């Protein structure tokens, strides 16, 4: 059967107005002729497929149609697609149009998009399918309007304008005659007009497409607003019409008078029909075209300007200003075809050309004819056009289109090729000198493509200023070319560039007579430039004395740090929180100090105060043979004592603050390495810690940070400039080149360039990246809802009224201050009335949040779990400690900004120990970074800091390496309050752009008063039952 179908069935289609898509088919195995000779009425088609058989392939309603087909006396002429198994003899005789009755199937439009495998399809099917796609595209783009049709029916109709009108015209032109061959009535020999037929099909298909798309929605799309009371017996016409627009049945009921009124109302929309013509401007398109010179003719081609049988012309076009993709060539304008798209196209083109001739006088020559379409250009003219006229035309508001390769991306320039010796990965301890880029070569290039001797010779000899090289046109400035060649001669005679120099060239820092258009690097240099070095380097094992087993990604990190250290390049390790940046740095230090008698000087680590203990503890644990000294506290050594100490020390840990104060002592020492932990501390280049860090001298610099610096450009500049001074240029240049284009204009090009520049020095692995780590348990985020008490709600309202008044009456800094104050007060009242009132009153049952917290803690403690509580309010925390302690009869640890370091370290140790306290209350600021508190598997954020990054950092105290269990993270949110609104706002902003939210809550102050009012207002659902 398959063979039979495959060979012999050809399916055709046509649109039958009122019925829809109709299919019929020819069968090559049925007799080609009929014996019936009647010419008066339609005869049965001799080899059409019976409707029942066709319906087996394409299900639908079986019917019979009368088609006007090209025929001979004996039967219809076969379609070209039909292949007969046994070819019948040559047919002869006059071909004329005759009616035939043909069995057919009316199908659902969707059938057109679902072809059967073993059947051939005629052009008419493809055409109808294209119509269907066009209709669906119109629906998807919303190019539809609702209307009322007799019946009455609610229908969606297409609005075909602009380019769609051109597409519709193309569809009309592409309708094969067979597609309109249905005989409209007995005696008809004309067939359907292609335009009305295509329009009828579009009309019907668009309506179906809209209903189908609306039906796809997960929830029904309600066009009619819900009714409060009971529905009346008969709906108002408008309502019935709206409802019928989104139901399978387009029919609706309405009283005649109401219906007429509805139809009248819709009149302005119905008047929006086909194309609207719009304004346009002239566009000049430079093209290289064939001269059409006969290659067999041995004579010279007088038109050949380029030596390749081509010449230059500047073509005139009109471009719609409303729809820039609509471009009409001049010959369409002169022929009148453009008038359907652009009003008064001829006069417009003439006026534009007249205006253009004022800024580009060369144009005049082309205008001295009846229908100017293009301007012939000599090579020299072309060069002039490209270098000057084009820019002038653009400046005067005209469009200019240049041939491919003329977008400026392939200028004549220089290319540096370097390759590093040896396979990647052999780089280990100290094995790599700075002079090892043995193979290097400077060459002339067009864009990325190197030019060979012959091509360069051709450039030098070129008389014209436009030379074609490898199919690309290159503008040649002989002076610059000569200087470029001189540069090549000198550079190639020099010693090989160092890696740092190569990177500088790649970053465009080298002053060259021609632009550097490409840097090709092979081997590890290439890996470095591409930012893939960590993956291609051989993972490095720390010495045996190191008492921790590094995970594979940590070994790669160690190898990468070591690699950059050997190259003398500053490195930024920006792994996610909890991936073990400390351990990787310690491993590097241990590796470099192996064997133990090596003469490596001390490394200085700057970190926030809360982390000094961490460094000491981790070093003692993993690298006990390293001599670590904490330079910190009032009793710290200074001057000669410090120098004495340094002679016997491997690692000095100090805080940013101490470093700034003791800078005189510290800068007199040449450090082996300077490490900035939590390097975002130097994000402000002018602040004391940054200045201090920059004054220190060190053989190598490393920055550790867990925040994605790509989103904080000033911070990125500051850190990168610290690591490799000058690498991103001056702050002003950086602002101009990157900060403004990326932050203000969202320029992807600038962002990509910046990534390329920083890639070699930046290694960032994400905790969520499964290739990095697969054994970290899950983090479960829970929104913990609660309700305010009546007391809280009434305080809340009072604050909103009071503060909104103040915000409205203030401006500038004062307004910002008021917004932040309002925010703080509202947060406080959500925590507890006593926190707002500062009255020292007992906590009791006055806060919905505290009540919910108690319930939660009860459950957590009953499970024997440990929990971290974060609050940004020290006062609230201080209130909670005695309350919770009494309530649960156990010790509550409390860490805040004023907790001395020693006590802090002791708390962490106790909490981490199995039998230590189970509840740890921390200040968000003081406890949010650095600490490892993996004993906890619950984190509760008591109040919200409206910046997800800060909250996530805090959460990561528990969710980091060493955590064995899933971590539950709860954030308290009261519905109908500022907490919920801003939670929603943060979520939407997060989705919009990570860049929007910076460190603080400052962005809230940018909201308008109206927005603030809706953010602050107390919703009805905020108050619970008491």
């Amino acid at each position, binding site marked *: 059967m398959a063979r039979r179908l495959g060979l012999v069935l050809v399916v*055709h289609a046509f649109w039958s107005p009122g019925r829809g898509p109709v299919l019929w088919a020819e069968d090559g195995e049925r007799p080609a002729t009929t014996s019936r000779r009647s010419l008066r009425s339609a005869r049965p088609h001799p080899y059409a497929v019976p409707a029942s058989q066709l319906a087996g392939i394409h299900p639908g309603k079986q019917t019979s149609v009368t088609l006007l*087909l*090209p025929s001979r006396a004996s039967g219809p*002429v076969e379609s*070209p697609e039909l292949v007969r198994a046994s070819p019948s003899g040559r047919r002869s005789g006059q071909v*004329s149009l005759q009616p035939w009755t043909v069995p057919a199937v009316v199908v659902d439009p969707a059938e057109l998009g679902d072809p059967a495998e073993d059947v051939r399809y005629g*052009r008419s099917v493809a*055409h109808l399918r*294209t119509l269907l796609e066009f209709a669906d595209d119109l629906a*998807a*783009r*919303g190019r*539809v309007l609702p209307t009322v049709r007799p019946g009455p029916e609610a229908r969606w109709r297409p609005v075909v304008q602009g*380019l*769609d009108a*051109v*597409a519709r015209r*193309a569809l009309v*032109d*592409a309708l*094969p*005659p*067979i*597609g309109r061959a249905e005989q409209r009535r007995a005696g008809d*020999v*004309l*067939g359907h007009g292609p*335009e009305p037929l295509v329009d009828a099909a579009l009309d019907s298909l668009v309506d179906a497409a*809209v209903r189908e*798309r*609306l039906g*796809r929605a997960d929830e029904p*799309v*309600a*066009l009619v*607003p819900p*009714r409060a009371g009971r529905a009346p017996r008969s709906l108002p016409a*408008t309502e019935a019409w*709206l409802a019928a*627009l989104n139901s399978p049945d387009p029919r609706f009921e309405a009283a005649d008078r109401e219906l007429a009124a*509805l139809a009248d*109302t819709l009149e*302005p*929309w119905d008047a*929006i029909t086909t194309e609207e013509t719009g304004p346009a401007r002239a566009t000049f398109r430079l093209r290289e075209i064939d001269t059409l010179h006969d290659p067999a003719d041995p004579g010279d081609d007088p038109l050949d300007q380029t030596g390749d049988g081509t010449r230059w012309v500047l073509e005139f076009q009109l471009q719609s200003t409303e729809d820039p993709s609509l471009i009409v060539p001049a010959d369409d304008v*002169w022929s*009148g075809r453009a*008038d359907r798209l652009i009003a008064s196209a001829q006069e417009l083109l*003439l*006026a534009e*050309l*007249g*205006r253009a*001739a004022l800024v580009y006088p060369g144009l*005049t020559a082309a*205008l*001295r004819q*009846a*229908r*100017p379409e293009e301007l012939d250009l000599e090579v020299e003219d072309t060069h002039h056009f490209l270098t000057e006229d084009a820019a002038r035309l653009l400046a005067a508001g005209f469009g200019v289109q240049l041939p491919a390769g003329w977008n400026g991306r392939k200028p004549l320039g220089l290319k540096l090729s370097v390759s590093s010796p040896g396979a990647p990965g052999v780089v280990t301890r100290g094995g790599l000198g700075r002079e090892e880029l043995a193979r290097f070569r400077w060459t002339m290039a067009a864009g990325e493509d190197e030019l060979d001797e012959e091509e360069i010779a051709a450039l030098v000899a070129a008389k014209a200023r436009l030379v074609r090289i490898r199919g690309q046109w290159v503008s040649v400035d002989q002076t610059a070319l000569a200087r470029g060649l001189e540069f090549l001669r000198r550079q190639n005679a020099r010693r090989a560039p160092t890696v740092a120099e190569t990177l500088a060239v790649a970053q465009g820092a080298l002053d060259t007579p021609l632009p550097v258009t490409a840097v090709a690097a092979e081997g590890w240099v290439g890996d470095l430039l591409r930012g893939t070095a960590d993956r291609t380097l051989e993972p490095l094992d720390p010495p045996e004395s190191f008492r921790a087993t590094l995970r594979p990604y940590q070994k790669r990190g160690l190898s990468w740090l070591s690699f950059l250290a050997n190259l003398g390049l500053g490195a930024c390790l920006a792994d996610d929180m909890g991936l073990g940046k400390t351990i990787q740095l310690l491993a590097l230090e241990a590796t470099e100090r192996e064997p133990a008698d090596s003469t490596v000087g001390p490394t200085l680590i700057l970190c926030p105060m809360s982390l000094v203990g961490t460094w000491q503890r981790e070093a003692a644990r993993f690298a006990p043979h390293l001599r670590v000294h904490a330079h910190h506290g009032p009793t710290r050594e200074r001057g000669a004592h410090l120098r004495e100490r340094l002679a016997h020390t491997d690692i000095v840990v100090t805080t940013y603050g101490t470093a700034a104060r003791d800078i005189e002592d510290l800068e007199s020492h040449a450090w082996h390495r300077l490490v900035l932990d939590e390097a975002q501390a130097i994000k402000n280049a002018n602040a004391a810690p940054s200045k201090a860090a920059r004054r220190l001298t060190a053989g190598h610099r490393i920055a550790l940070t867990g925040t994605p610096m790509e989103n904080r450009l000033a911070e990125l500049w500051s850190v990168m400039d610290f690591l490799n001074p000058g690498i991103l240029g001056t702050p002003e240049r950086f602002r101009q080149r990157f900060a403004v284009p990326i932050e203000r204009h969202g320029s992807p090009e600038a962002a990509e360039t910046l990534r390329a520049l920083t890639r070699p020095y930046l290694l960032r692995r994400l905790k969520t990246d499964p290739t990095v780590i697969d054994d970290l348990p899950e983090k479960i985020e829970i929104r913990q809802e609660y309700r305010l008490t009546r007391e809280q709600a009434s305080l809340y309202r009072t604050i909103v009224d009071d503060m909104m008044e103040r915000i409205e009456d203030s401006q500038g800094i004062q307004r910002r201050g008021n917004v932040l104050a309002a925010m703080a007060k509202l947060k406080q009242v959500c925590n507890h009335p006593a926190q707002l009132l500062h009255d020292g009153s007992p906590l009791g049952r006055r806060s919905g949040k505290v009540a919910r917290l108690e319930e939660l803690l009860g459950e957590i403690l009953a499970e024997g779990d440990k929990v971290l509580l974060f609050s940004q309010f020290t006062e609230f925390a201080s209130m909670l400690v005695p309350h919770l302690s009494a309530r649960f009869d156990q010790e509550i640890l409390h860490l805040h900004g004023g907790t001395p370091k020693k006590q802090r370290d002791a708390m962490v140790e106790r909490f981490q120990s199995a039998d230590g306290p189970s509840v740890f209350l921390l200040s968000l600021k003081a406890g949010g970074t650095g600490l490892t508190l993996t004993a906890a598997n619950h984190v509760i954020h008591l109040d919200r800091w409206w910046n997800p990054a800060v909250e996530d950092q805090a959460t990561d105290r528990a969710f980091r390496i060493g955590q064995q269990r899933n971590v539950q993270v709860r954030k308290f949110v009261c519905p109908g309050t500022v907490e919920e609104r801003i939670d929603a706002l943060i979520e939407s902003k997060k989705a919009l752009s990570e860049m929007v939210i910076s460190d603080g809550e400052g962005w809230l102050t940018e909201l308008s008063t109206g927005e603030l009012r809706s953010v602050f207002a107390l919703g009805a659902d905020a108050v619970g039952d008491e």
Partner: protein
Amino acid sequence: MSDQPFWAAEDHPKRPLRVENGVQIHSSRGTVARTWWSRRFLAVLEELGVGGRLARGRSYARSGQIVSCEIDAGSVVALVQGTRPTPYKVRIGIPAWGKEEWGRAEQALAADAWYAATLLAGGMPTEIEELFAGLGLALFPTSQRDLTMDCTCPDATVPCKHLAAVFYLLAERFDADPFEVLALRGRDKDTLLANLRRRRGSGAAPEPEADRPVTPLGELLDSFYEAPAADLTRFAPARPAPGALLDQVSELPIAVRGRRVRDLLRPAYTHLAAD
């Protein structure tokens, strides 16, 4: 500008009556005739020896005494408010070209798009005089015989200041739109452009879509099952925001339970755009 025009004291005891919404000449100082063609037009008057008197008309024109001014084929008709309650009627006549002459002129203009392009860009090529001269036509008046000047004022001098004022206004019209020079010779801009379009051989306005004749099927027997493929990817327009069309159409004065139909329909468009 002072209330008292400088000429009022010397020539007339009474000031001309003020005109509300008169035709105000835009150039309040400096030369009125900025372009070569309007200067060229006025130059004839200088040649006629009436140049000095034009200064009065300039002030008249500038103070807005011209009530109306129509440029037509072969004549300029204006109403100028003087000291009498009824404005004076001013007429400047210049021979309009006949049908045959315009035929030659249009043919020449249509054959060289540069003229129409320059005119449409607000300019007039100096060569246009030569072009017309080659056809035996003079665009600008060459002698007094080319101009007829009438004014209903009692002033005996020709041109009187009312005529002079109209000449100045005319010059400004010419400055602003060089087609007005041609209009005075008998072809208004729209007619001229339509005629040029026809002579360019590019047919008249586009034929209405519905009127395209349907080719009978009987004439298509050779290619009955064939047609060029319609490649719609060539015309793929950008995807607008959902409901962009709704923003373009007017709001309808119907609502359901206080919500306007356009707003009620908006969710439908959003869903249409979903894939």
